[in-house]
């Protein structure tokens, strides 16, 4: 009997990439349950399958085998438009390379998912400006991505991910292209959104700074879950690490 409500569950999840004669098993029978409202970091070295898992959970690619349930709905059963609805309204995406639409201003980037969701222009603008303020870019709404620093672009991406009040924010190496300080700011921002908006955060990363804010850390290697650490275990470890440093 579980006390948790799971927002994401994967069952026997496998993804095999075939390139010519070679096959890469990027995910190998992954079973992972993610609780509503938690902050989960998916840690692992480069090539361990983090992005592949991100794509599967986000409905951006289809598994070779196994199932992803979002709120107990099997994602493979969704029609194309239901899947688009899910991406638009229920999941926010954050990428290592920010992926803002280059020809659009910060505000236009943030309002685009709201336009897709059917909000009127005025409502979308108001909400978009509010979100940009929340991420500390209230005065930069009219700037194009090229006129913003990496950290600022990632803040716009965070605002955009939150545009339709998603239940889940999925991030793939959100600090991968940022320096130490800016990376920390983004992590803090994500944690703040997690606490204030109760949004579930699932972040693939190999940035150890992320451990501090995570409720759980899922370590993966070669497409398999190696171990899952709970907050209380992490605290002990972080304490030990700090002790060792001194």
């Amino acid at each position, binding site marked *: 009997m579980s006390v948790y409500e799971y927002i994401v569950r994967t069952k026997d999840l496998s993804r095999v990439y075939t390139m010519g004669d070679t096959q890469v098993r990027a995910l190998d029978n992954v079973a992972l349950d993610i609780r*509503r*409202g938690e902050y989960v970091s998916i840690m692992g070295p480069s090539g361990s399958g983090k992005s592949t898992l991100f*794509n599967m959970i*986000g409905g*951006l*690619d*289809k598994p070779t085998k196994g199932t992803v349930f*979002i*709120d107990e*709905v099997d994602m493979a059963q*969704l029609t*194309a*438009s*239901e899947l*688009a*609805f*899910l*991406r*638009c*309204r*229920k999941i926010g*995406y954050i*990428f290592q390379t920010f*992926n*803002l*639409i*280059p*020809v*659009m201003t910060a505000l236009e980037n943030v309002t*685009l*998912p709201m*336009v*897709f*969701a*059917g909000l009127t*222009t005025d409502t979308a603008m108001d909400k978009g400006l509010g979100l940009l303020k929340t991420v500390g870019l209230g005065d930069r709404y009219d700037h194009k991505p090229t006129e913003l620093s990496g950290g600022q672009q990632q803040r716009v991406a965070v605002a*955009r991910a939150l545009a*339709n*009040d998603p*239940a889940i924010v999925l991030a793939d190496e959100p600090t991968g292209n940022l320096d130490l300080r800016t990376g920390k700011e983004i992590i803090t921002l994500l944690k703040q959104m997690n606490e204030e908006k*109760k*949004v*579930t955060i699932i972040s693939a990363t190999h940035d150890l700074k992320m451990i501090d804010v995570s409720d759980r850390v899922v370590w993966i290697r070669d497409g398999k879950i190696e171990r899952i650490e709970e907050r209380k275990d992490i605290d002990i470890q972080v304490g030990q690490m700090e002790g060792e440093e001194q």
Partner: protein
Amino acid sequence: MSDSQGAGSVLGEPDRAGIQKQIVLPWSRALQMTRENIFVRLGRSAITASGIFLGIAFLSAVLFGAAAANVKARLDLTQLGLEHEQSELQARIVWLAAMSLLVATVGIVNSMLMSVTERYKEIGTMKCLGALDSFIVRLFILEAGVLGILGSVAGAFVGAGIMMLAYIGRIGRGGVLESWTAPALQLGGTDIRLWLAILLATVVGGMLSIAAALYPAWQAAKMPPAAALRSEF
């Protein structure tokens, strides 16, 4: 309705037919995005439009030449007994027109392919934000249509304009003006007057442009977002 937002269930109400599940792209926003795409990537847009421009300029020059030759023949009163020569000229015109359209088509297919492939990542991102495949296709059709029409209209003016200057010495101002209503082309046994032929050429230019964008845009739109996002452009 209210639980379709926030941390509620994934698909809103359990029944799957609710209107709140609709994803939309209003025409006003689509047009605004088209305008931004064209202006921000002015270089690429100019290249795309110039393919059509050159093709249609050449085509309307050929058409003008044909119409002006008809006028000249009438002015010279030499059209008697020239049926055979006329039909040979007609065949040559059709051939030239077809060639110029072919050249334009190759050019525009090429630049549409490039303008779609260099935007794979953007297409993938839009799909993450909830865009339907049809939104992607619609945006590219709009852009191709606008560029195709602009290129065609400019091409028609320049092509015909140059020929007007070239012919003014030979058939005079009146002859040049008369050419616009002279037959320029025979299609299925009916004479097509110059102005109509050039108008048709312009429309064909716009259609060619859209047709050229359709296939690459549709290909890119139906890619899984993960694949589109991976591309290095």
